[in-house]
C-alpha cells in the first residue's frame, strides 16, 4: 500500500511535466541522404514557407506567379513571427524529411547550418540572376563554395544622428569612434542637449549583441573567424572593439540603461530625444520620420554608415534568402519560382510596398526610389562592405558563446582580456567538435 501511495505523485508530476517533455519529444534521427543534389526535376504545386509579411508585398509576387502558372501553384505556409520558432519548425520539417515545405525563407545566419546538414539543396548559380546582385548578399547565401540560397532582401546597419544638434554644435556626422566621441562632447555641452546620452546600439543579451560586437570587431580591422573558419577573437583588434563597448559604458558615452536595449528600446530612446547617436537597422527610418507627433525627432535626424576605428565602420549583413528544401518535390518549379521571386522586376515592384532593401545595387541609386527612401544610398555603402556573421554550422552555439563573453565584459563581471581568451577557447572547442 505504501508502495502504491508513493507512486501517485510520480504519475501526477508526469502530467504536469508534460510541457517540459513536449519540448524534447521529437526525434533527431535524420540521415542526410538526398540523392543527387543537382537534380531539379518535377513540376507541380509547391509551398513557400516564411514569416508573415504585413506589407503584403510577398503575397503580390505569389499572386503574380500563380496567375501565370495555373499548373504550378504556390501555396504560402506562414510560420510564427519569431525567428527562433521559424527555424525550429523548418528544422523539424527537415528532420522528418517531410516534403511539405518546398521553398524556405531563411535568415542569412541559418544558411550554413541548413546547407551543412543538407537540408537545403545547392542551387545552379547560372540559372539565377546572382551575378547582378550585390556580392556581399550572394556571399551570405553561399556555403562550401556552392550557392545554397538566393538573396531575397538585405539589411545593413546605419548610424542615426541628431542633425539639428550637430548643426547647432557645428559638427558633422562622425566617421570614426573618436570623431563620434568628439561630436558628442560638443553636442552634450549645448543647453538643449541636457539629459541626453551619446550613443547606443543593441546590447541586451540576444542576437543584437552578437551583431554589435561583430560590427565593432570588423570596424576595428579584425574578424571573428579567419578565412578557413578558425576562431580569432583573442586578438588586439577584437580587444580594441570590446574595449570600445566596455569603456563606452564606463565613461557614460553609452548610457547605463542601454544594457537592456534591443532594437525597439533603442528606437524609443532615440525617438524620444534621449540619444545623439543610435546604431540600428533601416526599418526604424519610417517610424522616426513619422509626422503624426509620435516622433520627437522627425526631420531632425540624418543617417550615415556606422563609425569605425580609423575610418567608416563595417556593418554586419542582415536579410533573408530563399532556398529549396532537399526533401521537397517539384524542385524544377521551385527553382523557377525563386528565379521569378528574386528577379529584378519583382524586387522593384515589391519595393513600392515594403521598404526592405533590394539585393540589386541599381535601386539604391534610382532617383524615384531614393526620393521615397532617402537612406538607400547610405545603406548601399553599408551593405557593399558588409561582412556576414560567423559562418558556422552550429550558429546557435557560436552566437550564444559570443553573447556570454561580451555580456560578461560589458556588465563588468569579467575583464575584456579574460572574456576574449575564454571565448577563444570555447569557440575553438566548438569548431573542433564539428
Amino acid at each position, binding site marked *: *500500500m505504501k508502495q502504491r501511495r508513493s507512486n501517485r505523485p510520480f504519475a501526477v508530476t508526469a502530467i504536469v*511535466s508534460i510541457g517540459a517533455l513536449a519540448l*524534447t519529444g521529437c526525434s*533527431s534521427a*535524420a540521415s542526410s541522404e538526398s540523392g543527387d543534389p543537382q537534380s531539379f526535376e518535377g513540376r507541380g504545386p509547391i509551398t513557400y514557407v516564411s514569416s508573415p509579411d504585413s506589407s503584403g508585398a510577398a503575397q503580390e509576387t505569389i499572386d503574380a506567379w500563380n496567375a501565370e502558372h495555373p499548373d504550378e501553384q504556390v501555396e504560402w505556409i506562414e510560420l510564427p513571427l519569431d525567428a527562433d520558432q521559424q527555424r525550429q519548425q523548418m528544422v523539424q520539417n527537415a528532420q522528418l524529411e517531410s516534403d511539405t515545405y518546398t521553398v524556405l525563407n531563411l535568415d542569412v545566419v541559418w544558411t550554413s547550418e541548413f546547407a551543412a*546538414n543538407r537540408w537545403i539543396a545547392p542551387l545552379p548559380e547560372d540559372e539565377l540572376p546572382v551575378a547582378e546582385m550585390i556580392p556581399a548578399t550572394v556571399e551570405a547565401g553561399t556555403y562550401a563554395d556552392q550557392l545554397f540560397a538566393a538573396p531575397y532582401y538585405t539589411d545593413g546597419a546605419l548610424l542615426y544622428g541628431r542633425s539639428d544638434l550637430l548643426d547647432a554644435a557645428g559638427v558633422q556626422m562622425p566617421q570614426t569612434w573618436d570623431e563620434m566621441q568628439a561630436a558628442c562632447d560638443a553636442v552634450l555641452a549645448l543647453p538643449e542637449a541636457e539629459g541626453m546620452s551619446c550613443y547606443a546600439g543593441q546590447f*541586451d*543579451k540576444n542576437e543584437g549583441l552578437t551583431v554589435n560586437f561583430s560590427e565593432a570587431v570588423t570596424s576595428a580591422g579584425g574578424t571573428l573567424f579567419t578565412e578557413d573558419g578558425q576562431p580569432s577573437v583573442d586578438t588586439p583588434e577584437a580587444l580594441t572593439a570590446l574595449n570600445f563597448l566596455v569603456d563606452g559604458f564606463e565613461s557614460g558615452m553609452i548610457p547605463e540603461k542601454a544594457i537592456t536595449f534591443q532594437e525597439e528600446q533603442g528606437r524609443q530612446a532615440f525617438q524620444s530625444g534621449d540619444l545623439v547617436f543610435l546604431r540600428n537597422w533601416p526599418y526604424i527610418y519610417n517610424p522616426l520620420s513619422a509626422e503624426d507627433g509620435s516622433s520627437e525627432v522627425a526631420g531632425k535626424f540624418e543617417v550615415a554608415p556606422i563609425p569605425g576605428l580609423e575610418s567608416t565602420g563595417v556593418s554586419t549583413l542582415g536579410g533573408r534568402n530563399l532556398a529549396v528544401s532537399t526533401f521537397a518535390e517539384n524542385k524544377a518549379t521551385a527553382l523557377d519560382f525563386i528565379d521569378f521571386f528574386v528577379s529584378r522586376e519583382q524586387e522593384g515592384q515589391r519595393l513600392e510596398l515594403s521598404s526592405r532593401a533590394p539585393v540589386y545595387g541599381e535601386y539604391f541609386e534610382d532617383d524615384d526610389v531614393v526620393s521615397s527612401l532617402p537612406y538607400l544610398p547610405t545603406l548601399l555603402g553599408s551593405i557593399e562592405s558588409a561582412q556576414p556573421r560567423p559562418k558556422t554550422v552550429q550558429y546557435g552555439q557560436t552566437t550564444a558563446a559570443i553573447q556570454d563573453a561580451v555580456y560578461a565584459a560589458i556588465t563588468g563581471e569579467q575583464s575584456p582580456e579574460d572574456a576574449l581568451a575564454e571565448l577563444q577557447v570555447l569557440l575553438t572547442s566548438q569548431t573542433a*567538435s564539428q
Partner: protein
Amino acid sequence: MTPPTAATAPKTSQPPELPPTDPRGHTADSPAPRGATPAPRRQDGKAAAFLLSPTLIVLALVIFYPLLSAVGQSLYSSDAGLDDQGFVVQGDVFVGLQNYAQIFAGPESARFYNALWNTTFFTVVSVALETVIGVMFALMMNRAFKGRAFLRAAVLVPWAIPTAVSGLLWRWMFQTDGIVNTLSGAQVLWTAEGMAAQVAVITAEVWKTAPFIGLLVLAGLQIIPEEVYEAAKLDGATAWQQFWSITLPLVKPALLVAVLFRLLDALRMFDLPFVLIGPRKESVETLSILAWDSANQLEYGMASAFAVVLVVYVAAIVYVFVRLLGADIFTSSDAATPRKRFRRAAADDAVVPPARQPGARTTTHEVKQP
C-alpha cells in the same frame, strides 16, 4: 492480424472478463459491509474500468509514451561531425548515462546547478509570498462588504491573462524608462542581470498567481460555519486566535492543495523569466529554460536529460511536501492508512445514518399512512 478462431477466442478473452465471483473475498475487502448493497459493487468497478479505459489509453499515449521516449532519448547524443567538404555527417550515438554525467559533473554542471538553484529559489520565494498574499485576498473576499463581487472579479484578472502576455506587460513596466522606474524615481536595470531581474520575475509571478491561491482558499473558507466563530467570540478569542485556531486548521486541506499546485507549476517555470528577462540570463535561468535551450541547439539527448532530471526533481519535491504536510490528495479510499481508514469509516458512519433515515422515515410514514 488474423481473426481468432471461435475455439480460441473465448479462452483468451474470457478469464479476465468473467472472474469467478467470490462474495466472501469481496466482503473481506470492504471495510464495513452494510445492508444489501455490497454485492453489485464489483461489477460497478468493472464498468468504471471500462468507462475509464479510453482515458487511460489517452494518458498512456500523451504521458507515458513521451516520458519513456524522453528517458530513451536522453541516453543518446547526436554525434555531428563534418566531412572534408564541410557537410554534416550525423548519427545518434548511444552514450548511456553520459548526458547525465555531463549535467552533474561535466562542463554543463555549473550552468545546471545555477539553474537548479534559480528554480528552487523562485519556487520557494514566490510560493511563500503567494500563499501569504493569497490567504489575505481570500480573507478579504470572504468578508461581506460593498463591491465584493467586483473585487472577486478583479482578483481573477491576473490569473486569466496568459503568462507570456503578462510577461510582456511586466517587461514593458520594468524597462528602464517604464512605469516602475518612473514611479520609484530610481534607475534600476530590471531586465538586465542580477538581483533586480530576480525581483522582477518574482513580482510578476506573485502578481499572477496569488489570486489562484486566493480563490482556492476562499472556497475553503466558505464552508466554515459561522457558528464556530460565534462560539469562539463568546469564549473571548481574539481575531488572531480565531484565525490561528479556527480558520487556518479548517482551511488547511484547501490551502495545501493550492500550494501543491503552485509548487508543481513554479518548478516548471519557463515563460515568465524567458519573456520578461530573456533566455540565457544566468540570474533567472531555470531548468525548463535549460531544456529548451538544448533542444533549440538540436541537442535532443541533452535536452531530454534535463527534462528527465526536472521530472525527477519535481516528483521528489512533491513527495516530500505530501509526506511532511500530509496533503490528502493522492490517497484514494483503498490506499488509505489504517488511521485514515478508521477516520473514513467514522465519517461514513456519520454520513450513512442520515442517508438511510429518510428511507426509514418514509417506511414508517407509509406504515402510518393507512
